């Protein structure tokens, strides 16, 4: 079993990966701005956007283990099989009625 550590120092990780993640946070900001600028912004109530905003708050809530906790926030928390598949695809966030 791994001890869980990355072989790079914190400074090395920041030096190597900062620009990539700076770009990603700007992409998220631009995505939200784009929704605000949309000609019909009913998507602001979309369950996926609400889930995304919750996940963003989890990035700096101080509780650590962010990736696994965000994965669970974006997962259906029910346990029983559903009666019939309503579609073949997935939306990326649980519908409100199946939220934890």
């Amino acid at each position: 079993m791994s001890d869980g550590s990355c072989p790079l120092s914190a400074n090395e990780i920041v030096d190597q990966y900062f620009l990539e993640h700076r770009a990603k946070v700007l992409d998220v900001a631009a995505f939200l701005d784009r929704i605000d600028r949309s000609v019909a912004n009913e998507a602001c109530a979309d369950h996926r956007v609400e889930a995304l905003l919750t996940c963003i708050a989890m990035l700096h809530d101080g509780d650590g283990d962010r990736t696994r906790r965000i994965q669970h926030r974006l997962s259906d928390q029910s346990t029983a099989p559903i009666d019939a598949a309503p579609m073949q695809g997935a939306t990326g966030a649980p519908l409100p009625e199946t939220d934890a």
Partner: protein
Amino acid sequence: MKYIDPHIHMVSRTTDDYRRMAQAGCVAITEPAFWAGYDRCSVDGFRDYFRQLTVVEPARAANYGIAHHTWLCINPKEAEDVGFAREVLSIIPEFLDAPTVLGIGEIGLNKNSRNELEVLELHLNLAAQRDQMVLVHTPHLEDKHKGTLLIMDAVANAGLTPDRVLIDHVEEHTVGDVLDRGFWAGMTLYPDTKCTPQRAVDILERWGTDRIWMNSAGDWGDSDPLAVPKARMEMQRRGHPAAMIEKVTFGNPIAFLSRSENFRLNG
């Protein structure tokens, strides 16, 4: 350094991809049966597909020195119609004795419905009856965690031993449960919807390198047939030793796949 891509859908890829994979060090692949992007409307459509997987693709791969193996099933995305799935299941035994067939796969769940679960159980029973290994597809995105737990219970109920079953498409919220229950785990490297190479290496650092592999699952959608060598570069970038990289991308696939007497490398 040689590597194996243990999950890739070459029926959807070009000959150029075979060439580039060989140039990057790929010496073997395994190709599970999957959803073609549309629902097939006849059993004969699946019979043709299984011939493609057992005859055509091994020949295409051999032109580039790549050993090709396959897994057979009706994919969970086409499993809502149980009657049709039963018809497709009835022809799978015709192909199980082909020399490059490793087992049943990629079976599993898609939306976690009762019908999908019934078809999964039919596949698991076939695997148990024919002493076949199993490659499992876990659901996408919000359905993955629930589906992974349902699948592991179904495998246990079918009496299959977990060390002959690989649960694929694990991510941070499922990999621990899969490994703790004795299964093999697969990480799929996708640009958006599964693991990036960076997150896959994070998972190796957190959960270790035993009973786990990485694959590209390259297909007709957003995917990258060179994702495995890119993940190897990510491991090198972080200073992981060559032995660890070799274990995850070559040794581990051989260790699992060799449980089938049909698995062999060329040369």
